[in-house]
């Protein structure tokens, strides 16, 4: 079903492309994929061109929040999907490659030698599609889990959806937190580990639906998650942890001096790799999946389309696995880093 909808969206796109007859189909698919992976200022499910030749979008606008010498809030519908310039309080803003630039009334964008825009960029706190979705997933999670928690007040056993979630919670506690952090300290980190696991998992799963929301393939999102892991690790690090970083016990003194910067760099590389891994896995998955779906429109014959469909179907199943696996690995490695930070020296 999910796949069919996505295909549907493509079909619409394709018609549009043929009608316009200007763009090369391959380029268009590439652009569509690139666009799909990006954040946007409105929540649009798909777009099509009606009989009158107008470009129509199905979805709704979201608020744009800018800090440009004062707080500016306006609806993203003013951009008309990047087609017009928004005028707010005497200032003009235009969308260019999905970023907001301050322009003149005509929306002129000036470029430097490398074709980078030189226009001023206002500080952008817009409530974009991804922010909207993060909030939505957070609310859903809060509702599900607080309801599940309430159920425990009445009975010792979980009821309803909780039956499915409890084994996962117990798995995270018994197979991720306990062995990696240790019996003594694991309780402190359970809140973060559980939240991050379910958040990443749910968001990844929603990313596979044709809603077109891909929260975890934004580097900003994964950076935020990795940064929280980094700060928790750093602030819960005990004497033993810092001792291993700055003055590695059990090696000769010259080695200690060499190891200290490497270990210090390691503390930054660890969350960095967390950030990149999640981002890259999800992005790569989406690119491959959408490219294969896009092949359908390139082949345009009776062998190509079913083949592409079958491939896309198999890949979607793989992506389902990846969605859970990445959430698991993120949680697992976070737990591992926390465990290293609170480990008591056994020398």
């Amino acid at each position: 079903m999910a796949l069919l909808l996505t295909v549907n969206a493509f079909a619409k796109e394709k018609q549009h492309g043929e009608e316009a007859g200007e763009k090369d189909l391959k380029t268009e698919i590439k652009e569509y994929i690139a666009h799909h992976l990006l954040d946007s200022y409105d929540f649009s499910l798909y777009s099509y061109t009606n009989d009158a030749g107008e470009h129509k979008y199905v979805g709704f606008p979201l608020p744009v929040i800018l800090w440009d010498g004062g707080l500016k809030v306006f609806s993203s519908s003013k951009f008309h999907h990047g087609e017009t310039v928004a005028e707010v309080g005497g200032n003009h803003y235009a969308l260019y490659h999905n970023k907001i630039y301050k322009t003149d009334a005509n929306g002129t964008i000036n470029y430097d030698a490398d074709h980078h825009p030189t226009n001023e960029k206002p500080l952008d706190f817009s409530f974009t599609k991804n922010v909207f979705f993060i909030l939505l997933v957070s609310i859903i999670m809060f509702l599900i889990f607080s309801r599940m928690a309430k159920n425990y007040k009445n009975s010792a056993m979980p009821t309803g959806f909780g039956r499915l979630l409890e084994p996962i919670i117990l798995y995270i506690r018994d197979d991720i937190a306990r062995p990696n952090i240790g019996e003594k300290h694991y309780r402190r980190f359970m809140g973060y580990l559980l939240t991050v696991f379910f958040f990443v998992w749910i968001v990844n799963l929603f990313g596979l639906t044709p809603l077109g929301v891909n929260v975890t393939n934004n580097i900003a999102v994964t950076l935020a998650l990795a940064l929280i892991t980094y700060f928790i690790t750093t602030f819960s690090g005990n004497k033993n942890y810092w001792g291993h970083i700055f003055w590695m016990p059990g090696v000769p003194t010259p080695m200690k001096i060499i190891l200290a910067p490497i270990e210090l760099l390691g503390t930054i590389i660890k969350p960095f790799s967390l950030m990149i891994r999640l981002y890259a896995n999800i992005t790569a998955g989406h690119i491959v999946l959408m490219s294969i779906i896009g092949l359908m429109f390139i082949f345009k014959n009776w062998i190509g389309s079913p083949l592409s469909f079958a491939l896309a179907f198999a890949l979607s199943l793989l992506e389902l696995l990846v969605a859970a696996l990445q959430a698991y690995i993120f949680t697992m490695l976070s737990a591992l880093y926390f465990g290293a930070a609170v480990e008591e020296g056994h020398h």
Partner: protein
Amino acid sequence: MEKLMNEFSFGLFFWMLTIFILLVVLLKKFAWKPILDAVNEREEGIRKAMDAAEEAKKEMQNISADSERLLKEAREERDAMLKEAREIKDKIVADAKEAAQLEGDKMIQQAQATIESEKKAAVADIKNQVASLSLDIAEKVLKEELKDGAKQEKLVADMLSDVTL
């Protein structure tokens, strides 16, 4: 790398961080803590119940062992008591026998003593009677002898002649 930098949106980062930290705090308070507490409590309860069952099993074993031991003890006690009773009985019988013997001996002795004393008394009585009889006889003889004066004279003379002054 440049692509990543270009893609990075501070707004999204800001919102993500805010919403996510808020989510962690809220979920920790309203969901994870109660859920984990409940699960822990349940596990604790199960463990306690298991422990109690184990304890009860042990108790049962103890009790059966105890009763076994008690039974054995009771049997032993009974045997001991029987033995003791038999001993007591034997002793009583022996005692009684001894007492009877003693009593009999005593009675025999007494009887013998009585017989002896009777005998002595009888002998003494006979002696007395014999003495009085002899006196009577002697008197009668003397009376017979001294009937005529001449004889009396002669006797006095004999006696006087015996006395030498």
